[in-house]
């Protein structure tokens, strides 16, 4: 806890300074609220709308968690499959990378045409953006398993299954967690974007409504909440990592 405080004061001070400059600038140059609201405007807007906003917030959180869980399951499954079947890996690895070159903004309306306005197209978008970091980092982790330990396991007569669950999987956990952290932040963004294209609820909907009626303060409330949500997700993964990888404190390998 103390460590967080001693390390965290610099970025905190920077943010505070930024907010102060922002506040002063909007007042000094008398910038209109619909162009750029001052931090105090955003704060009072937040106080006004929070009850209405909460409903959208809950919807987005649910969507994010659902999409994230599906995304990491798909990512892990893909990684395990590609790791176990080298032929399949050689054939499909390029497709894995290509999947990341599809611009989501273009794909999203198509998905709506194909699957309607339900939650399916949204979940697909989130899955598409967060399975990749997991798949790549997990695959990398599996492939980099210490040769010595693999040799030991084989000499001892381990089956392929035992080799995977007792050695390769735990060995890859630190890399899987790096992937999880990236995916966690992506999933929030992806959820908001998916809500832009036709949804009844969610921060994305709230944002589009606010933008089209020039209620810029509201847009900023949404932006800040999205950022905080991303950070929280990231923090939860870091916490989980600390719990699961207790042995990794010093990064010691034997």
């Amino acid at each position, binding site marked *: 806890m103390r460590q967080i405080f001693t390390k965290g004061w610099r970025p905190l001070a920077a943010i505070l300074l930024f907010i102060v400059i922002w506040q002063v600038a909007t007042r000094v140059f008398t910038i209109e609220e619909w162009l750029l609201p001052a931090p105090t405007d955003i704060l009072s807007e937040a106080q006004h709308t929070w009850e209405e906003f909460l409903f959208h917030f809950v919807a987005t959180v649910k969507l994010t968690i659902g999409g994230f869980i599906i995304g990491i399951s798909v990512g892990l499954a893909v990684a395990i499959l590609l790791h176990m079947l080298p032929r399949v890996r050689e054939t499909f690895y390029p497709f894995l990378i290509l999947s990341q070159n599809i611009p989501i903004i273009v794909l999203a309306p198509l998905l709506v045409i194909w699957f309607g306005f339900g939650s399916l197209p949204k979940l697909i978008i989130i899955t598409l953006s967060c399975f990749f970091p997991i798949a790549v980092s997990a695959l990398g982790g599996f492939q980099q398993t*210490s040769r*010595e*330990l693999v*040799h*030991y*396991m*084989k*000499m*001892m*007569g*381990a089956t392929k299954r*035992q080799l995977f669950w*007792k*050695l390769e999987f*735990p*060995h890859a*956990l630190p890399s899987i967690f790096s992937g999880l952290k990236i995916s966690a932040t992506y999933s929030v963004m992806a959820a908001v974007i998916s809500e832009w294209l036709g949804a009844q609820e969610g921060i994305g909907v709230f944002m589009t409504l606010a933008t089209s009626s020039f209620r810029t303060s509201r847009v900023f409330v949404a932006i800040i909440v999205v950022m905080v949500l991303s950070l929280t997700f990231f923090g939860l993964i870091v916490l989980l990592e600390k719990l699961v*990888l207790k*042995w*990794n404190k*010093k990064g*010691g*390998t*034997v």
Partner: protein
Amino acid sequence: MLSVKQISKHFGDKIVLEDISLEIAEGEFVSLIGPSGSGKTTLFNLIGGLLMPDGGEIWKNEDNITNTTGHISYMPQHASLFPWRTILQNVLIGQELQGRKEEGLAKEMLQKAGLGEVIHSYPHELSGGMKQRASFIRALLSPQSFLCLDEPFSALDEFTRLDMQKWLLHIWEDNQQSILFITHSIDEALFLSDKIVVLSAGPAKVKRVFEVPFARPRDEQILLSEEFLKWKRMVLEEVQR
């Protein structure tokens, strides 16, 4: 009893092992010495079943175990403990692979090995010698009664090494499992084993087999005896010839 029968093996166009035959009786301690790169580790990989020999067979009692795994227990040169497992969990892995765990026995053996204090520690919290001891306990606890040790002490300093040799003798004399032991040190081979197999290099053949005459239990006094020096000279001459 483990019998290696006329094994040969090549990699590419290089013949590494040629017509190697060995026998390790029940409860016997056999050392294998030979020049670096002569193919000792390759022989282990063949006995472990990871490689298919070009010719010859490997038998364990009445079973032909050529190119099948799971019949031997193994201790590598580097401790190769799993960093995410505690020492206790580490020494149980061999049993886990074969399906039954005897935690009580494991704790008892760790206690005897002087690792009682650290059974719940992670490997990175241990010294090199302690890790090596844990690695040996792991090999002993594995259900296979036949142990292959590949230069287990070569990464340790001289003092720790002698301690470990005495410790290994002590533990082994209690358990009496069959051991095939690779080493570069003639002292180590003479001090520990019943039989020393000297290999030649390029391709490796069995040059000569020495029966070591020292009575058991042995203690470190014999390292300084006339008899020991005489044997050391004999083995050395054979290695260099």
